[in-house]
């Protein structure tokens, strides 16, 4: 790195990458006791990265990949790992999203966390998180991606458990980290197998080799695909590893916005798009999985994504905590993206990831603003009538809601439509499922908005709410801009310039209706249906009418299909029993029987020998005489 010229724009890549780390280190070591300064350092670092990233926007107009000189981090016997940055359109888009949304969330946090005694620690963790995230986005090899994958895991652990004195927060961060670790197990194993078979961890080398000889992975192909997907399953919270995400709402609300909207949960989808080439090899299953036959790893991914989208939407319908509704909605939207990857629609997935990052970050920050204004009240049934009291929050929240539901011409419509169209072309069943989920999405989001913002205030805290300070509302307004406009320019064209030649705004606006009118019409119909249902049920409602109408079904949905309880029981009978057995064996068998046996024998020998040491000369003489006699007997026997 030292010999590279700082005048070259490529060298600035390292500055983008390291700025947040420098901020985290400086805050931890030097400005711990100056909260204001720490906050500004952190904000300056992330916004600096954001601004510098635009440098590469220009560079990427001429070429597909900007080469950044790499450093060899480890090189032993065939395992060669670089610390290298890969700048192409996909990583640049993700980079802009992460640092852009990140900057706004940092600024919002400066207001939201104003009175917290650990303000500096908060911003240090935030900077560490952004740095780890940049590592995943820019990594040019899988090993480095795994390193930062883990660092994202630990920095989210620190952020979710920011209020570690609270038992629920301490449990939530532990659960998040452990669930992610289960996913990481698959990810690492997948990387190891891929390296053993293809001989590299470098993304571009792997792609070349696998394109040149698609049968290279042989019967391991499907397994590697699924193992690597396990990593995405953990970070992007796909069923069955989705359980950590709702609990992770224990962290401060801006953290939820950062982790659960724009960055960490998006990492899984991004990673799948990045390594999509490993899903395009000749399919094959090892003998133990041969029953899967013609089902490819991608099919399984698509189904898991669709299933996650469905169950998360069902759970969201009966939640009452404003942050939890958004959390389940995030799960559901991530399911969409993963389904889209599974149907080979990586561009659609990245598109939805981007627009979702904008409007979901805005919704979470809006929820944060509501919670802040309503004196930390999170139950929507204790809100009501916030429309007049929080005008800016209300307007941006509605824009975000409509974008999430997929109403044209807001950005969410275009990206969701692209996924629906992909599903329509590939798998009619998943298409129906996706439309169903879209209906439910509109239903629960309208429920949230109607109950929280309309009607009369249902509690004191809602009665006395007043709009949050400027430092918190401005980020909301800024986020509204891309939420409205992102669809106009066609991000898909940026990602994939070869496929989209002509580009004018009106083409983009009406593209969905030209491309696959069927999908677009169904998507719109879903919004209308869901919206009508929600309005008819919840307008002016004082409490939720659904539990009476649906009886135990509503209860099951509210209790998340008892999945958490089932997992707890499963862990108890497997891991709990194993550790109990191991501990018992260790205690009683190995240290008890064997070791105490050895000790016992030695002890008895010692005691026996002590008996001999009587100190009586006659006894010694007697033993001596007997011994001599025995020896003589042996000697003269022959």
């Amino acid at each position: 790195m030292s010999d590279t010229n700082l005048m070259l724009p490529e060298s600035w890549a390292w500055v983008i990458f390291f700025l947040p780390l420098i901020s985290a280190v400086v805050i931890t070591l030097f400005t711990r006791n100056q909260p204001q300064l720490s906050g500004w350092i952190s904000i300056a670092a992330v916004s600096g990265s954001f601004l510098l990233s635009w440098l590469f926007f220009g560079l990427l107009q001429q070429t597909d990949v900007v080469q950044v000189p790499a450093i060899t981090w480890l090189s032993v016997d065939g395992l060669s790992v670089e610390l290298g940055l890969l700048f192409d359109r996909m990583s640049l888009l993700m980079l802009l999203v992460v640092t852009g949304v990140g900057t706004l969330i940092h600024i919002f946090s400066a207001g939201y966390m104003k009175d917290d005694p650990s303000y500096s620690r908060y911003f240090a963790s935030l900077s560490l998180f952004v740095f780890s995230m940049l590592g995943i986005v820019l990594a040019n090899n899988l090993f480095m991606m795994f390193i930062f994958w883990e660092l994202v895991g630990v920095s989210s652990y620190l952020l979710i458990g920011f209020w570690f004195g609270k038992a629920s927060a301490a449990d939530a961060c532990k659960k998040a980290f452990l669930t992610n670790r289960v996913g990481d197990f698959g990810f690492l194993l997948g990387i190891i197998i891929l390296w053993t078979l293809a001989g590299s961890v470098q993304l571009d080398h792997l792609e070349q080799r696998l394109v040149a000889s698609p049968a290279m992975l042989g019967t391991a192909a499907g397994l590697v695909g699924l193992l690597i997907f396990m990593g995405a399953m953990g970070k992007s919270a796909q069923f069955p590893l989705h359980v950590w995400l709702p609990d992770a709402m224990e962290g401060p609300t801006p953290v939820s916005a950062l982790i659960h909207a724009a960055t960490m949960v998006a990492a899984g989808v991004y990673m799948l798009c990045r390594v999509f080439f490993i899903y395009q090899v000749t399919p094959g299953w090892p003998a133990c999985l041969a029953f899967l036959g013609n089902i490819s790893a991608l099919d399984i991914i698509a189904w898991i994504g669709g299933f996650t989208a469905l169950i998360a939407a069902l759970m969201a319908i009966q939640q009452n905590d404003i942050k939890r509704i958004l959390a389940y909605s995030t799960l559901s939207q991530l399911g969409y993206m993963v389904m889209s990857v599974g149907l080979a629609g990586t561009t659609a997935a990245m598109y939805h990831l981007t627009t979702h990052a904008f409007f979901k970050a805005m919704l979470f920050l809006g929820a944060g603003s509501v919670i802040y204004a309503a004196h930390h009240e999170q139950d929507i049934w204790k809100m009501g009538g916030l429309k007049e009291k929080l005008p800016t929050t209300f307007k941006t929240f509605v824009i975000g809601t409509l974008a999430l539901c997929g109403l044209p011409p807001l950005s969410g419509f275009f990206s969701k439509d692209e996924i629906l169209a992909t599903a329509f072309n590939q798998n009619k069943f998943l298409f129906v499922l996706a439309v169903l989920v879209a209906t439910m999405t509109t239903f629960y989001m309208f429920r949230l908005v109607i109950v929280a913002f309309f009607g009369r205030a249902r509690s004191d805290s809602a009665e006395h709410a007043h709009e949050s300070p400027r430092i918190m509302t401005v980020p909301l307004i800024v986020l509204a801009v891309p939420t409205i406009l992102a669809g106009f320019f066609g991000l898909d064209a940026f990602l994939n310039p070869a496929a989209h030649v002509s580009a004018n705004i009106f083409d983009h606006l009406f593209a969905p209706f030209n491309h696959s009118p069927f999908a677009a019409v169904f998507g719109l119909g879903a919004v209308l249906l869901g919206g009508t249902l929600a309005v008819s049920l919840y307008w002016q409602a004082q409490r939720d009418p659904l539990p009476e109408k649906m009886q135990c079904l509503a209860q099951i949905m509210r209790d998340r299909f008892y999945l958490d309880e089932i997992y707890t029981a499963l862990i108890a009978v497997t891991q709990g029993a194993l550790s109990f057995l191991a501990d018992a064996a260790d205690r009683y068998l190995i240290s008890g029987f064997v070791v105490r046996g050895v000790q016992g024998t030695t002890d008895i020998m010692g005691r026996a020998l002590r008996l001999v040491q009587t100190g009586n000369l006659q006894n010694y003489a007697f033993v001596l005489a007997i011994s001599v006699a025995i020896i003589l007997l042996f000697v003269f026997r022959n």
Partner: protein
Amino acid sequence: MSILLTSIIGLPFAGALAVAMIPRNNRLIIRSVALLVTMVSMLLATYLFSEFQSGVLGYQFVHEIAWIPSLGINYAVGVDGISVGIILMGAIVAFAATCLSHEITEREKEYYFLLLMMIGGILGAFASLDLFFFFAFHEFALIPTFIMIGVWGRGENKNYAAFNITIYLTIGALLALFGLIALSVQAGANSFDIRVITAAIKAKPLTGAVQAWIFPLLLFGFGILVSLWPFHSWAPLGYSAAPTATAMLHAGVLKKFGLYGLIRIAIPLMPIGSQAWMQVIAVLCLGNILFCGFVAMRQRDLNLLIGNSSVAHMGFIFLGIASLTTLGVTGAVVIIIAHGLLAALSFGISGHIYHQTKTLDMDQMGGFLKPMPFVGAAMVMAMMAGCGLPGFANFVGESMTLFAAWKVFPVVTSLAVWGGLVIGAVYMLRAIRSVLHGPVSPMGERMIDAVSFWRKLPFALLLIGLLVFGVWPRLITDKVNPCVEEIIAMATFGQPTAKVVPPPVKGKQRPPSRKRPAARP
């Protein structure tokens, strides 16, 4: 220059002699002498590490003194890429352990004498090039361990623990001694010098029959010393009863003697034996990783948890050795160094807590991070390093061994990945949750952080070591790699080559992107 290594080893011994001569009332002087010699020794070891020439085969900084030439026994010390890192780690741990010995308040003179003897023995063992001194230095370190546990140990169990550890380690050391003597006799070089024996065996390899009985002697002898499953139960018990510094030094450094012996002596000199036994090691290492991991999950005593996790970590080292590849054994050496720093850090932290609470029952703790942010943060980092978080040196070593071993033992390695990533995380996070997180317990309100520079220094040094080697692992691997390559070449002699296909495209040059036109006139 050649005196450098001898001074690193000799300083603690000289310090021990000095302590023996100082009247026992001068407690401050005794402690200062101990701190001074270990600090100078550490600084010299750092200098040694920085002056070491990477990529050069053979021993550097060799220093020889003839002792009993007729028996082929001579004092000879030197370092190669493998031992130079271990000596640096050992010297850092030694200094940190001496710093943290402030908890000892009775019979300080005897304590510091034994501590310095132990340190000298440890550093000497890893620097020795002569099998006699190699073993003798180890015993110099081992005997003070037993005495220190027995005299300054803690808890009701300390006598049983001291007895247990003595029996186990003595048996292990005896087995290894028989193996080493048999080896040098069979080599027929009339010398105990490792270099001479290696050359002799290279010229005339041992027969399969001889290897078949010497190798298991060394394997299980050294294995017991490193707590190879199922000979591990002395370790958690012994460490939970030992005074802080003893646990740090033994778990961190002295224990690695067995691994060092396996890598340096058993594997390269007896290829047939090692190839035959690697399957067994691979299975036994699962006992360490999975079995002891599960045991660690159920511990309520912090030191028993750390002790069991330390035993579990040994499994990854054995796995790396069992792979018999350069990558795996290099990874094993990296873990030896990383785990030394980590074990010392963990036991140092638990000692800091025990010193104030007089118990390590995690059920009574909680919320300690609030009253002690520095030690608490160090503990979070230690636990994270222990479950293989990137950024700490343990991750580098563990991932190297896993990458290397999958090809040879796919099932074992897959289970080991589970053990490292999931099981490790379960008990490490449980420790953080019960000790540091949650509402502040009554005990927590009285906790005092490490405030002064000297109290913080040992923790900071160990953490810096873990981070530096974790962020820039080539500091170790570039030194270790060539030496391990030579060892593996000897160990896999006669075996069909099982090397991983090296990537045909080298790291730095990347093929031009697909679309860029050739801009050449």
